[in-house]
């Protein structure tokens, strides 16, 4: 075995690993197709991949898929931004003040103990079946992970770097901008990444409870009309939505945290 072949080996393995993922997906698709074709199930129980695909094209061409996806996306993004913003500010204050932490902690713990699915109907009753209640549910579900990560991130700023900034007579604002934010960013973005996927879940939960728009509403419509292919279309769209959001935050992480290396 010469040196070249030794060097090439890991690359070949890498290459084949990339194909493995695709092959696994295709295998899953084939299994689904076979189950639908030979399982003897009616199509309102298990539509075939082809039926789902044609239903997808139909929903796309009549515009309904885009409209409902747009509504859900807007709820998810507004909820994510609102919840994350509120959580970041609260988290920073909690990290800085033990007193505030004591005051707020019963509420924070309680908010985590309440299953959001259970209070979603309440929020829909209070804020109506429109977008407001969904945005609120998204914001609530995003709040806690972002808050916790903000607190952890800000508390983990090395004391020695605080000393450095103080020896250079840095102002509070400079300490915030040049030390605390960049130092807490990795942990904070980790929280945001979790929040992004949770926000999609929040919007769907809200829409399932009561809505006249959105992908969760589409799921309900499909179920009511025994249009199971439409349910599949809505679910797959949700998966793509969550993956795109997750990917966006992950991309931002890679851009902002270049210094961490790979």
């Amino acid at each position: 075995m010469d040196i070249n072949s030794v060097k090439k080996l890991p690359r070949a393995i890498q290459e084949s690993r990339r194909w493995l993922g695709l092959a696994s997906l295709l295998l899953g698709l084939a299994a689904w197709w076979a189950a639908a074709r030979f399982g003897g199930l009616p199509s309102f129980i298990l539509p075939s991949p082809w039926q789902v695909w044609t239903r997808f094209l139909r929903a796309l061409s009549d515009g309904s898929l885009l409209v409902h996806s747009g509504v859900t996306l807007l709820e998810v993004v507004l909820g994510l931004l609102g919840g994350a913003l509120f959580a970041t500010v609260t988290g920073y204050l909690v990290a800085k003040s033990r007193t505030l932490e004591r005051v707020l902690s019963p509420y924070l713990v309680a908010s985590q103990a309440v299953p959001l699915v259970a209070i979603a109907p309440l929020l829909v009753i209070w804020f109506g079946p429109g977008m407001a209640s969904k945005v609120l549910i998204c914001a609530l579900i995003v709040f806690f992970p972002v808050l916790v990560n903000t607190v952890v991130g800000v508390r983990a700023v090395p004391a020695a770097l605080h000393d450095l900034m103080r020896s250079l007579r840095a102002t509070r604002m400079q300490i915030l901008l040049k030390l605390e934010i960049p130092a807490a960013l990795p942990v904070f973005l980790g929280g945001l990444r979790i929040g992004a996927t949770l926000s999609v879940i929040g919007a769907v939960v809200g829409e399932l409870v009561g809505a006249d728009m959105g992908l969760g509403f589409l799921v309900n419509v499909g179920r009511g009309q025994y249009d199971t292919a439409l349910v599949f279309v809505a679910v797959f769209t949700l998966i793509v939505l969550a993956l795109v959001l997750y990917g966006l935050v992950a991309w931002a992480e890679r851009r902002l945290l270049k210094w961490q290396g790979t």
Partner: protein
Amino acid sequence: MTKTPILTVSNLTAIFPDNNGGLHALDRIAFEVHPREFVCVLGPSGSGKSTLLRILAGLLPPTAGQCAFSGGENPRIGMVFQQANLMPWRSVIENLTLPLELAGMETDAARVKARELIELVGLGGFEENWPRDLSGGMAQRVAIARALIHDPDLLLLDEPFGSLDALTRERMWTELSRIWQRRQKTVLMVTHSISEALFLADRVLVLTQRPGRVKLDLAVDLPRPRNDEMRYTPEFGQLARRLKEAIG
């Protein structure tokens, strides 16, 4: 030296609150530092050396007494810590420009100064590297450059070479004494190494075991530039013995 001192420490006392009437770290410390003097503070561990430095840096209020700077209330301080203490999210040159940024200098002007300092500490070519790419000695040289860049009135070094291996440490002594001669700064350095103190300092202050008090104020009149050979001279040996006896 007959010039007015740049720093006058008088009656400085530090007591940390604990459950047992307070931990007495420093007890009525008094000394003066003159401009461009290199002073080493030597003492056994737990003698309050670092506490003294933190008070001078303004990181800790003294319990009693004071330290007065001739330049006024708020002297510019350059501080080097036991660890390099670089910001991992900033490149080498961005770490260097930090003190200038905080003082409100424009980025371009700050970068020009930073390049000068990078050359001075012999790290040309590493401007855009991340701190994680640097060895311990290189990182500590960046830290020294950062402490010098804003032209501080007083340079405070807190056992800056303690975390380096012996060979790198001795190379850093030569480096630091070269930089000090070029820049003509007033330096106060905490160390627990007698050789380090004798290699670098004009004067050595020896602190007692806690509560720290000035036990010996020894002038080091060895010729400069100092090198390795000097360590085997009888003068060096005598000074070293006096310091060793004072530490106890």
